[in-house]
């Protein structure tokens, strides 16, 4: 908790930009005690630097995982190796920047722990994004993992909640084959896997309908299967009532993804250099938020000082 800034010392750019930003803010704060207003252009410069600097020199803040995010992480961490996990990609490209990092991090974590993953999607547009995760995370980072043994991609099936209703009782009814028409019965991973009830965990990642909520209501609850969910920030508040009874944890928005990534990277030094888009996207966000908060404080200091002085409004 103490060293929340993960600064590689060699990265001078980071330090310079942080010094510039915070030194500048400190100077403005001191000035504000004399009740001097800040020109808007100075605020603009600060925002620009706060956003541009982390893009140029990736600054990542170590996110400490909140309880709800840790719920998902710990579940995957504590399952015995070889457990079967289903990850459903229920989102479209518009939502992807927010939730795909979650899918990537969770897949990497589960494979690293030696779990077996079944990938699927309830959205037609999710299939392409699923392949993206396979191509960018699974294949390059886990070359030793075999398709059909360690993971399988069963693709997309139309039918929304109807699909869920069927697979909670039998996969083969809805998915007679995987995405490349290989029969499930010939896939080792599916030898002892009849329905969702035989899974050890389900992770649904999405934000629309059908999505995590439907998974909880149609599969997680009736099948009594542990569920983890990752959702876009706007819908996150709606899922809280399900935690912790119906879902083991919730990843909400870019922040949720960043927290998960940081927890994962922290514990698996092997993945130190993994691409962590969630954390990367949080860099500009966090800095800019801090700059805005500092300016709110500066504004209030100026306001109170000038009122004490009895200056004109």
């Amino acid at each position, binding site marked *: 908790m103490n060293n929340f800034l993960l600064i590689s010392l060699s990265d001078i750019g980071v330090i310079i930009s942080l010094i510039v930003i915070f030194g500048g803010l400190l100077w403005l704060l001191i000035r504000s005690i004399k009740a001097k207003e800040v020109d808007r*252009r100075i605020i*603009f410069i600060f*925002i*620009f630097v706060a*956003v*541009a600097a982390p*893009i*140029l020199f990736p600054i990542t803040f170590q996110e400490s995982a909140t*309880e*709800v995010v840790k719920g998902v992480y710990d579940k995957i961490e504590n399952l015995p190796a070889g457990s079967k996990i289903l990850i459903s990609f229920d989102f479209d490209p518009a939502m992807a*920047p927010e939730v795909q990092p979650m899918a990537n991090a969770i897949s990497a974590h589960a494979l690293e722990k030696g779990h077996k993953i079944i990938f699927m999607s309830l959205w037609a547009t999710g299939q392409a994004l699923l392949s993206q995760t396979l191509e960018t995370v699974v294949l390059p980072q886990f070359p030793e993992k075999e398709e059909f043994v360690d993971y399988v991609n069963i693709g997309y099936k139309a039918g929304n909640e109807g699909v869920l209703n069927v697979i909670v009782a039998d996969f083969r009814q809805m998915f007679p084959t995987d995405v490349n028409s290989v029969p499930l019965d010939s896939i080792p991973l599916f030898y002892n896997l009849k329905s969702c009830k035989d899974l050890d965990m389900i992770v649904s990642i999405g934000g629309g309908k059908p999505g995590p909520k439907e998974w909880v209501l149609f599969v997680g609850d009736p099948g009594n299967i542990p569920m983890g969910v990752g959702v876009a*920030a706007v819908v996150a508040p709606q899922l*809280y*009532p*399900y*935690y*912790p*009874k119906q879902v083991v944890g919730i990843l909400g*928005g*870019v922040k949720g993804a960043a927290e998960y990534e940081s927890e994962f990277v922290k514990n698996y030094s092997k993945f130190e250099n993994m691409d962590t888009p969630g954390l990367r*996207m949080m860099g*500009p*966000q966090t800095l*800019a*938020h801090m700059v*805005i908060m500092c300016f709110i404080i500066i504004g209030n200091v100026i306001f109170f000082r000038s009122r004490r002085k009895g200056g004109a409004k």
Partner: protein
Amino acid sequence: MKKTAIIVTAVVMGLFILSWVLKANAVSATAESNYILRGFLVTIAAFLTLSVLSFLYKDNPFYKFAEHLFVGISAAFWMCLGFWSTIVGNLIPRISEGLSNAFKVPYIGGDWGNVLGIDIMNVVFIFPIIFGVMLIMRLSSNYGWISRWPLALIVGTTAGLNFVRYLQSDFIQQVSSTFVPLLGNNWTGFGDFLSNLSLDASGQLVLILANWVIFIGVFCGLIYFFFSKEHTGAFGKASRVGIWILMITFGASFGYTVMGRISLLVGRITFLFKDWLEIIS
């Protein structure tokens, strides 16, 4: 004064051309065939991006240029889209088979049947054309008043639609969604109730408190919106609570949207650094 303006413009133009040359050179390394055009397009996109950003400093000729270009091009953009999607896409297939063939769009008449060998749909869809022409009559000083007819049609249509739609979605459904259990669903005793203040479903007090806040908040908020009664006494107090609730709403929504706004800027700066300058990968 004029001299500096000319110098600045010249310098910017020089940089622009330099960027174009460099960009075209960079693009030509890839398989792209017309790299000069491609380089120009990327450079102009970057130039326009910077022109708009320069507005943050103050109004200047580059911003004026970008603004006026934007207005002209976007106006024509929407006109073209409207023409192809609505007139050609929706109107022509319903009024004439010949025209449909000319524009190569599938004819969809006949849906509503024939009367005396004339397609009803062909006839009905003459109306919007007539009304459209009436609207243009506005340009005439003598018959301008006739443009009120299509206006009346438009307003009547949406008034009718809105009337029922809002009664349903805001009146009836919002009322029924305030029917929340104020005592919680699964009571687990006072001990749990007071000791567990977590956000999740096990925190009884927190959930129940949220329900109370919603309940009181909605009604005090509504009281604030009473126009025909003076806000004094108990009524005034409730209305004041209503304002507070509204203020929390506004503050919270503002804070919550900041994140999305920053992402937009991240997108633009990434464009400048990556697609234009290529200093990050």
